[in-house]
């Protein structure tokens, strides 16, 4: 082996080792919003495709949700005027569990749900939450390491039952953070997860109230 290769490869390994060491130290010293868990990252498997407006992923037991005869793109999901009522609550939770009780809701549905006190979870980064969020929304950034602690605080304060509706939003468009958070909550036994597809930008565009600052 030429002398240059004998010295180059150990130096490449040394650079990688220095990078790993620096990463370890910086991650240890980082704030909670910037720290990562080295292993067992709290991510559900990727959601392959963002859902379209009005698409009902599951809850076939809700006849008003999305009749099969309606085109998917124009389908109207179940109304949210009575979020604690039967329209939002699957009549047969066990059956809904077997399917996939996550569906997307429109801007109007999100607004109605907001007025009736349905809890909102903000899946965006905590810095984005501080800049502006839906009033009363819980800061639950899917990409930050303290997500589980934040979710525990939410559960302790609101005590949502498995069938109670929870609305999750992020930045709309191609943002899939809310889908990831919904998948995580589904794994934790919540079966009524509503994704506000157009998210916070739409909320602002609609002229709805917002809050700023820390949770």
């Amino acid at each position: 082996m030429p002398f240059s290769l004998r010295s180059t490869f150990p130096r490449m390994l040394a650079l990688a080792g220095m990078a790993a060491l620096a990463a370890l130290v910086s991650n240890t010293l980082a704030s909670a919003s910037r720290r990562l868990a080295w292993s067992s990252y709290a991510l559900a498997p990727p959601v392959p495709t963002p859902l379209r407006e009005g698409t009902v992923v599951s809850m076939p037991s809700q006849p008003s949700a999305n009749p099969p005869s309606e085109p998917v793109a124009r389908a109207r999901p179940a109304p949210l005027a009575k979020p604690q009522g039967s329209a939002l609550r699957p009549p047969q939770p066990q059956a809904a569990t077997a399917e996939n009780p996550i569906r997307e809701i429109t801007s109007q549905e999100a607004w109605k749900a907001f007025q009736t006190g349905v809890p909102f979870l903000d899946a965006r980064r905590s810095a984005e939450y501080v800049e502006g969020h839906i009033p009363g929304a819980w800061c639950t950034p899917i990409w930050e390491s303290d997500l589980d602690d934040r979710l525990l605080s939410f559960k302790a304060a609101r005590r949502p039952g498995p069938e109670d509706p929870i609305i999750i939003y992020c930045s709309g468009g191609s943002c899939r953070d809310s889908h990831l958070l919904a998948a995580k909550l589904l794994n934790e036994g919540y079966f009524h997860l509503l994704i506000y597809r157009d998210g916070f930008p739409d909320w602002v565009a609609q002229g709805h109230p917002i809050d700023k600052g820390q949770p």
Partner: protein
Amino acid sequence: MRRWLSHPNLTMAVRVLLGLVFIAAALPKIMDPPGFTKAIWAYELFPVWSLSPLALILPWLELFTGLALCLGLWVRAAALWVAALLLSFSLALSINLIRQHPVDCGCFGASTPGTESERLADMRWIILRDAGLLLLAIQVLWTTGPGRGTHQPANSASTDGQQV
């Protein structure tokens, strides 16, 4: 032409430029590992368990290789890493471009989200940019390779293959 391409001044300019690009790319990612994790995840090429180690180590590797190139230390080892990273980035972008899956490259931290067609167009330009940077890395590797002692940089003792 060959003599001009291997001129020590050109080599020094190229390695400093390459180093600065890698330092500039590393800093936003070091400042925001969760954001970079999200960018890597969006490529849909890596298992979930690998996201955090990649997001934590890769930016520091970029920083150290960038610093090594700028300072003229371990130049060949750093240039080999840079070439390997650029090849990996280009490959990851190309795979997603082929399957028409628009991703935010995450090269210099988070970028402004655009439409799908805008992001696909960006990906093409980024692959071209990476190819250009790869040519620069090859130039550094070529001029610091074995048997090229006449065109070593001024601080030849700092390059690989020489006594340090």
